[in-house]
């Protein structure tokens, strides 16, 4: 394929487009709510009403408002229908000729949509993820062409560095710096690896991106390969995402057929292959060294760093590891310029961030917002607040590695540093909302059970410490714990955090620490319930010592 072919493909796709397009979401939550039957019903209705000349039904990826699915969008009017069923789908088609559809109308101007700033999700819900032609029509693969013919690898890295993009997997390491390290590392071969092992429960952004716009990730990886000097890429996807795996494989095949992956991309001397590797259900494989062990066909156990993967990665060769969302940001940065991207967000956290909203919140789904937006805006305005008139109590970010942010701190802007200061982390973007009915100690215990079961067992602090902490939390929830148990829990948090080998263990105490920080009362209540009936002197001494604990 040459640049002319790319333009011709885009124009052909544009010309084939019919006057009215009904976009039917065929990803994640909508599919589970029978959107495939909705699409069949729409197609049938178009045919039966003799509208095939004017109307087309398009399979698209996630439109974001998954809780209201199945969703159907109408172009060019920009209408949105929610909770569409196979039974009322035909009324959407008949309404095109006048009349009112039976299906419920959504509000595309709701803050849920209006407050978003789609960069990574720009094509999500607009193009068919299984047709490379639609990706190309919307400007896809032109950034890769630009990189191959108009830029030197060093310039690409400079542009990424200048954009201020930081790793979207959660740690926030400057992407440009990572690329530069891999580019500098000597090695007869190098690898580019995409971490799509989205293990945090309650996080489904990467799933949404892969199911909705897989080519964006592939293009980002190919650009990275060119920049750092790698010709082989791997995408490590968790096995729980069969649709994402399927769409990635389709996308890779299509890209190869069009000469956009494989040998001699755009008829240049640049070769780049991508292979999909499927995880097998181990949370720890989201950790980079464990992930690489898993790609090598081994148990997914982490190893100490340094050496970092940038120097000593897959099979000992320099390896660039980035998250799905990071790669999906690359092509837009190249196309629209590093300055544009650096102009978005806050001083230290540039650009946008994709979040998944779930839990006790009205609007659940996937959103992309500019960095610096406050948590309150996300929860109250986009998310529509708590369900059933309840009050939002806290938001959990960063999964089992993160923490709970109480409602009192909702005015905090979303950026890497601010969330860290609150005792949580940006994480990969999962936001689970809790209301007043959620017991925070139970929640901490839930996360500890998760970490305990997912600990790989290699290092003792994590293997044993998580079990100990889980048992202490269980004693607490069973009203059997003493103040001494609580002290021991805090000591263990400190120990496990500081002595574990990898991120899993180091961050396992975070949910406990953050709930202790903001909801200490709930812990103390469980203690005091046991101490009921004790003398006044004793309970006041408990109150005193817990106060001194709080000051520690």
């Amino acid at each position, binding site marked *: 394929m040459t640049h002319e072919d790319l333009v011709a493909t885009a124009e052909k796709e544009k010309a084939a487009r019919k006057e009215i397009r009904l976009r039917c979401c065929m990803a994640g939550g909508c599919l589970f709510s029978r959107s495939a039957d909705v699409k069949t019903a729409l197609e049938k209705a178009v045919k039966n009403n003799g509208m095939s000349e004017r109307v087309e039904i398009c399979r698209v990826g996630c439109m974001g408002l998954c809780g209201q699915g199945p969703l159907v969008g109408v172009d060019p009017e920009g209408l949105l229908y929610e909770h569409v069923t196979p039974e009322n789908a035909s009324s959407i088609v008949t309404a095109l000729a006048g009349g009112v559809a039976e299906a419920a109308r959504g509000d595309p101007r709701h803050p849920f949509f209006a407050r978003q700033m789609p960069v990574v999700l720009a094509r999500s819900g607009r193009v068919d993820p299984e047709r490379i032609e639609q990706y190309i029509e919307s400007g896809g693969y032109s950034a890769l062409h630009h990189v191959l013919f108009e830029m030197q690898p060093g310039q690409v890295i400079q542009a990424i560095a200048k954009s201020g993009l930081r790793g979207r997997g959660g740690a926030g390491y400057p992407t440009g710096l990572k690329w530069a390290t891999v580019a500098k590392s000597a090695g007869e071969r190098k690898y580019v690896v995409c971490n799509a092992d989205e293990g945090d429960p*309650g996080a*489904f952004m990467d799933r949404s991106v892969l199911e909705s716009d897989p080519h964006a990730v592939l293009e980002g990886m190919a650009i990275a390969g060119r920049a750092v000097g790698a010709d082989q890429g791997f995408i490590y996807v968790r096995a*729980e*995402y069969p649709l994402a795996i399927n769409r990635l494989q389709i996308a890779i095949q299509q890209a190869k057929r069009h000469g956009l992956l494989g040998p001699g991309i755009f008829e240049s001397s640049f070769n780049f292959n991508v292979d999909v590797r*499927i995880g097998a259900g181990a949370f720890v494989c989201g950790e980079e060294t464990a992930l690489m062990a898993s790609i090598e*066909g081994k148990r997914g156990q982490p190893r100490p760093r340094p050496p970092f993967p940038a120097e000593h990665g897959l099979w000992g060769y320099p390896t660039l590891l980035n998250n799905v969302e990071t790669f999906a940001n690359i092509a837009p940065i190249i196309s629209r310029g590093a300055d544009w991207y650096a102009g978005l967000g806050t001083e230290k956290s540039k650009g946008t961030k994709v979040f998944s909203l*779930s*839990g*006790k919140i009205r609007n659940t789904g996937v959103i992309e917002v500019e960095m610096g937006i406050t948590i309150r805006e996300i929860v109250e305005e986009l998310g529509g607040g708590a369900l059933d008139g309840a009050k939002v109590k806290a938001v959990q970010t960063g999964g089992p590695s993160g923490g709970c942010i109480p409602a009192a701190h909702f005015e905090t802007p979303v950026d890497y540093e601010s969330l860290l200061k609150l005792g949580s982390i940006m994480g990969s973007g999962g936001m689970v909302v809790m209301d007043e009915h959620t017991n925070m100690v139970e929640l901490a215990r839930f996360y500890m059970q998760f970490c305990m079961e997912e600990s790989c067992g290699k290092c003792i602090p994590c293997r044993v410490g998580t079990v100990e902490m889980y048992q202490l939390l269980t004693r607490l929830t069973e009203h059997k714990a003493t103040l001494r148990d609580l002290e021991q829990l805090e000591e263990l948090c400190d120990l496990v955090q500081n002595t574990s080998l990898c991120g899993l263990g180091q961050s396992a105490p975070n949910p406990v620490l953050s709930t202790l920080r903001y909801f200490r009362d709930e812990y103390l209540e469980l203690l005091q319930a046991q101490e009921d009936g004790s003398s006044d002197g004793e309970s006041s001494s408990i109150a005193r010592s817990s106060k001194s604990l709080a000051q520690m």
Partner: protein
Amino acid sequence: MKLIKPPLPSADKRWKIVDSRMRRYSYQAHALIEVLHTVQQSFGYLDKDALKFVAAALHVPLSRVYGVSTFYNFFSLKPHGAHTCVVCLGTACYVKGGDKVLAAIESYARIKRGETTRDKQLSLLTERCNGACTIAPIVVYDGTVAGHQTPKEAVERLKGIVKL
């Protein structure tokens, strides 16, 4: 050095699927997890013969094959029941009552998570979030995801799938 290829464990055609998978990866050791996925898909679980065959064909120690098979949650060394019911235990499902759904199923089927009924009709499994958090809590009945589950609905659905 020419490596020796072990014979297929039996005339069962599914071994050919496994073998062709290994051939695709030129019998390289790093294909181990991919190959175990294929075995599990074909046979439903990994038995001793399968582990030995894969170890010999990929030239990796049996201990490593066993280590990998037991490390990852997806692999099972025991066959599942005729029907499977997977309850999600992710955070979103948890805060929306997934634990109560699980408890209801456990008490109805009289098995704990991870177990199979004695008549081999039903396996009750749990998973760590499959990303369908927007319709939490979810249960996967024989591969079909069902959202917004309540303890009552979950038991009703099970009754429709399997007689206990």
